[in-house]
């Protein structure tokens, strides 16, 4: 058995964008493991670490030499004769005497068995690492040594590659792998000698905390210490914390303050400036109000003279002054007076301006409101105003505040609460984890805005394909699904999409919108409606499966029953998931699959059951049980009690089993046969209107 040695590869890079580091480490590890697997090398424990300036992969025990192995090279069949054997031997640089023969199922063959000596790992690494490093994928790479040469995320400035105490010799972009690491730009030595055991310790002495976990802890502990006894508490921001962990090599928090007069600005604005523009944590007092303090994270050990706090405070004050200037400036013109200005802002080159967009949102919001029996007044007003904040200086400067600023300005300008709240929330949900709008008006407005984008884009053929979705239409559709389900809005999606498509068709024809062609299927419905429906269905499936964790077959079963709205879909899924775990369910589902096949083969016959034709015993029993159960199910469904309804259905299992055990559906007598099919047909269709059980994948399903 060969020896093992620790291995370390450190790629020293100019500051890597913080958000790319973790994915790059994942790729580095994958590439390295693939390399080792392909070369039969054992690695021991593999760890990856990264800071803004270095990507590191380490193995605790890498085999230093491949094991020797035998190789069998198959030659021509023995029947080909000694001439062929000579040729084969010559090609492999041996004499014919060295050849053996191997018996295979296809006959006897000449073969050459030879021993392959295992290669030194350091040789394998030396010839592979250049390509391996260059293979790490980046969202946007650059070249730096000249056109057409190596690309990477930022210039590579040093490489350490050590197997045991020896350097693995290779070079990349003019950098030779060596044994010396580098410390922090200002707090460390540019040449650090180390060994495997003291690597992290030596780096830390030179101002680099290698472990992301340790950097995170240093930030958290430091903030805890700073705020202790101040009466203030941190407003946690996990995403910001992660950014800062990867923006630094030696993070240290400092506490700064700002003039209380700025607290008169909306907290949303203060928070945006601090968190997103300056990467500061914000702080609150015991009553939960924003405090005039902030926590910045330095990339050095200490701010002994207080210069860093002071510098950050000055920058923040200038930023807040800007924001206050925008806030004051924007108040000079009311949002209501900015509606016409929207004509100057393009929403999408082919769809037109935000003025046109706003008309579409208004119409959609009204239709949803009417459909749901809501008062339209506030919703329409909010729809009219919701995009006007795009014209304000604040949103031009802080684009992420779109919607939020509209809401805040509308509030300051005396719009009623339902109006400004709807405007404030109408971009929500921003992600599948984010909250949906808080009010029903906001939910309707958000959906109307998203439907309008979907309808317009689809009508002009801008349909997302593959990973390409520049206008974020998938996210928009997903947002609608999330709002409908979590907002418990009982909107019939099919009907609404049909009406929306018709409306879009009418408007686009009327406007002679360039690139729009009315396209109807033979049954007279719009192709557009079908495309939208398919797209939404895909998003509905995605939502329930990937966001909510329902099984694929459960979703298929429920959707096959065509429920009227997504709230209902959710209720059925819950019920199905629960009842599925009961003992009778899966066997019953398997029987339904069988019933489905029988009915399909028989050409889905219709017709009512004639009780007088039922044979006594299993057949009559099933009919009686079914009649009783279906009556109960009908009552339960009136109150959407799908759990009890499905439990009731499950009680049919013995009767169904019994039926199949003792009754021949394919009876010789045609009338009896038809009657049996009618019996099964009724059972199947009634139960399938809750969920199509035949879609359920069961252990006994074998097809």
């Amino acid at each position, binding site marked *: 058995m060969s020896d093992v040695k620790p291995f370390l590869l450190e790629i020293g890079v100019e500051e890597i964008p913080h958000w790319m580091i973790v994915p790059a480490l994942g790729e580095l590890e994958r590439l390295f493991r693939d390399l080792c697997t392909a070369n039969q090398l054992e690695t021991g424990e593999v760890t990856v670490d990264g800071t803004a300036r270095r990507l590191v992969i380490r193995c605790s025990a890498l085999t230093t030499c491949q094991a020797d192995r035998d190789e069998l090279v198959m030659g021509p069949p023995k029947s080909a004769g000694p001439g062929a054997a000579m040729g084969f031997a010559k090609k492999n640089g041996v004499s014919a005497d060295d050849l053996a023969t191997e018996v295979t199922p296809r006959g006897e063959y000449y073969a050459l068995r030879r021993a392959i000596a295992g290669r030194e790992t350091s040789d394998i690494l030396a010839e592979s690492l250049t390509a391996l490093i260059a293979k790490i994928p980046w969202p946007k790479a650059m070249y*730096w040594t000249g056109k057409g040469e190596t690309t990477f995320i930022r210039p590579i400035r040093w490489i350490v590659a050590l197997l045991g105490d020896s350097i693995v010799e290779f070079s990349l972009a003019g950098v030779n792998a060596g044994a010396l690491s580098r410390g922090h730009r200002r707090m460390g030595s540019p040449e650090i000698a180390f060994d495997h055991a003291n690597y992290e310790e030596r780096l830390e002495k030179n101002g680099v905390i290698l472990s992301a976990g340790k950097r995170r802890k240093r930030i958290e502990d430091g903030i805890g210490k700073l705020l202790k006894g101040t009466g203030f508490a941190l407003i946690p921001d996990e995403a910001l914390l992660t950014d800062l962990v990867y923006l630094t090599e030696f993070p240290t928090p400092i506490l700064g303050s700002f003039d209380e007069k700025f607290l008169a600005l909306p907290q949303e604005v203060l928070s945006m400036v601090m968190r997103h523009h300056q990467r500061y944590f914000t702080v609150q007092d015991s009553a939960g109000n924003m405090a005039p303090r902030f926590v910045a994270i330095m990339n050095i050990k200490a701010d002994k003279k207080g210069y860093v706090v002071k510098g950050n405070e*000055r920058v923040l004050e200038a930023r807040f002054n800007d924001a206050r200037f925008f806030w004051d400036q924007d108040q000079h013109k009311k949002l209501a007076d900015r509606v016409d200005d929207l004509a100057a802002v393009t929403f999408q080159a082919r769809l037109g301006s935000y003025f046109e967009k706003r008309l579409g949102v208004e119409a959609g919001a009204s239709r949803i409101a009417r459909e749901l029996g809501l008062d339209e007044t506030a919703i329409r007003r909010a729809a009219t105003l919701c995009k006007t904040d795009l014209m304000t200086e604040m949103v031009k400067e802080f684009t992420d505040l779109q919607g939020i600023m509209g809401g805040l300005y509308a509030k300051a300008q005396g719009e009623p609460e339902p109006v400004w709240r709807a405007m404030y929330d109408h971009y929500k949900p921003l992600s599948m984890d984010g909250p949906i709008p808080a009010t029903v008006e906001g939910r309707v407005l958000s959906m109307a805005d998203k439907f309008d984008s979907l309808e317009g884009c689809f009508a002009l053929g801008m349909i997302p394909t593959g990973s390409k979705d520049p206008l974020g239409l998938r996210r928009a559709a997903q947002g609608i699904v999330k709002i409908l389900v979590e907002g418990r809005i009982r909107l019939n999606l099919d009907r609404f999409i049909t009406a929306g498509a018709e409306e879009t068709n009418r408007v686009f024809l009327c406007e002679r919108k360039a690139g729009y062609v009315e396209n109807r299927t033979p049954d007279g419905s719009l192709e557009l409606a079908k495309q939208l429906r398919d797209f939404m269905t895909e998003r509905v499936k995605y939502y329930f499966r990937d966001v909510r964790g329902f099984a694929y077959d459960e979703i298929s079963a429920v959707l096959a029953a065509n429920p009227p709205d997504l709230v209902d879909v959710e209720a059925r899924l819950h019920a199905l998931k629960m009842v599925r775990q009961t003992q009778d369910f899966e066997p019953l589902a398997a029987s339904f699959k069988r019933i489905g096949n029988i009915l399909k083969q028989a050409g889905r016959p219709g017709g009512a059951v004639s009780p007088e034709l039922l044979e006594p015993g299993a057949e009559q029993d099933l009919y009686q049980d079914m009649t009783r159960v279906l009556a109960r199910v009908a009552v339960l469904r009136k109150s959407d009690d799908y759990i009890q309804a499905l439990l009731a259905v499950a009680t049919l299992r013995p009767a169904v089993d019994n039926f199949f055990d003792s009754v021949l559906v394919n009876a010789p007598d045609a009338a009896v046969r038809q009657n049996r099919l009618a019996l099964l047909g009724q059972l199947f269709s009634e139960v399938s209107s809750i969920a199509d059980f035949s879609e359920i994948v069961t252990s006994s399903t074998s097809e």
Partner: protein
Amino acid sequence: MDSYQETIFKLKRFWAQHGCVIQEPYDIEVGAGTMCPETFLRVLGPKPYSVAYVQPSRRPADGRYGENPNRLYKHSQLQVILKPAPANVMDLYLESLEAVGIRLDQHDLKFEEDNWESPTLGAWGIGWQVMLDGLEVTQFTYFQQCGGVDLDLVPAELTYGLERLVAFLQDRKSVYDIEWVAGTSYRDVRFRDEQQFSVYNFEKADVKMLWQLFDLHEKEAQRLIDEYRSLDPEKDGTEKRRWPLLSAYDHVLNCSHSFNLLDARGAISVTERVGVIARVRKLAVGVATSWVDQQALLNAPEVAA
């Protein structure tokens, strides 16, 4: 404490010591030091070149009548081009900060991703904004493309925002309070410019005339580019080698400035904007590709007649 001009002297001296040509500002209005021919044209082609200069950069839409302490219609950039970027370029940059009196052990410095792109110049690069105690003091870019042309050698471009940097060094909350030289403030020197150009740019500029200027400069630049392209390198070799592409580029810069003025005046709708930017880019790309071509002609050995 160093004055504004002393800091500039120090930076220029530092980069002179590191082999840069010290240029004077270009004498046509530009929005950034990158647009000067010393950067835009010099980064093209295979010849190494290092240069540093202060460039007053005019951004009409950023004017605030001299009333905002941190926003200026015309701010000054110290622009450094190192072509190709040496491997220790980051260290050199840090040394330059120390050269103007920033003790790096007492301050926080972060390099945050910021890729630069200029649609009007058909140029982009990869780099960072350099944050000093939370203040962006420099834009650091490795150029990749200019005028739509992939660069042979990758230059590092360092752009110091001089007003910000000096306000930081002098601990001033307003750039107008910066000491330009003992006894004279930034306000004394620059306030009237800010005020009057804001009035002109936002209120008085004649939109019709600006469009005419834009069209005239565009036409002249395009004419020069077209004629250059039509010259036969064999037959008209001499003429082609001395063809005034630099003059064509001046007209491109004039177009760009007219565009900025029109934009500040609110005369360009959002829909138009993209189209006008594309017009300027077409010219910039035209000059850049012709320039590369001309440089190749100039570098080729003269064929004896």
